[in-house]
């Protein structure tokens, strides 16, 4: 496959989306692939949580996701990368993030998704708050997220 264009689809969405409707076209846009790995994160049904809101800072957030995609393409041998993130108000059960990587070999596809998710979780420009009993509470970064991120420093 000499000099074929890499397929890249990076989006911020302010309304509910259906991951299945993204993955089919993404897979078809990467003919000849060996494997596709996809992660979909949803708003968990934690007891008492009525809603979740993700704020972003437009001048930084989308360009930060493009920088992250650049680094994933540099670090792994990929054919295509899809990275879609919700912003705004969400209810439990709604998809919040979808990352999909297509590659000739499964190791690249799986590791690229792992890499992008770790960075989206703790190094991307999002601020999260959740509503419990009618009150909004800001979410602090989790220690586990920082540990996950540190795996990629080496």
């Amino acid at each position, binding site marked *: 496959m000499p000099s074929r264009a890499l397929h890249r689809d990076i989006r911020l969405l302010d309304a509910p989306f259906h991951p299945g409707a993204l993955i089919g076209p993404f897979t078809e846009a990467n003919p000849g692939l060996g494997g596709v790995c996809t992660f979909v*994160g949803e708003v968990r049904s934690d007891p008492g949580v009525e809603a979740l809101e*993700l*704020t972003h*800072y437009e*001048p*930084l957030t989308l*360009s930060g996701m493009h920088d992250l995609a650049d680094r994933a393409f540099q670090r792994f041998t990929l054919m295509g990368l899809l990275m879609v*993130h919700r912003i705004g108000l969400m209810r439990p059960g709604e998809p*919040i*993030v979808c990352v999909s990587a297509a590659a000739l070999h499964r190791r690249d596809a799986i590791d690229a998704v792992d890499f992008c998710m770790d960075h*989206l*979780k*703790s*190094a*991307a*420009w*999002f*601020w*999260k*708050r959740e509503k419990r009993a009618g009150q909004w509470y*800001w*979410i*602090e*970064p*989790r220690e586990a*997220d920082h540990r996950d991120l540190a795996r990629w420093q080496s």
Partner: protein
Amino acid sequence: MVFLGRLADLAGAPALELAAPLDWAGLKAELAPALAAALDDPRNRVALNGALLADKASLQAVAGDEIALLPPVSGG
């Protein structure tokens, strides 16, 4: 000037109009003490017109510039 995340709660609004020009000392003098302290907190970053400042104290804003105060991110 725009405030992100919990700093919008601290500011009482997501944005504030300030008179230009402003340097770092001038900006702090314009803000309530709690927000001025948040500016100094090394965990909070400052962006000028969408570009992060490596050295916050070097800020030089003129009329029409957007200053953003960004607390630590809390995940996707």
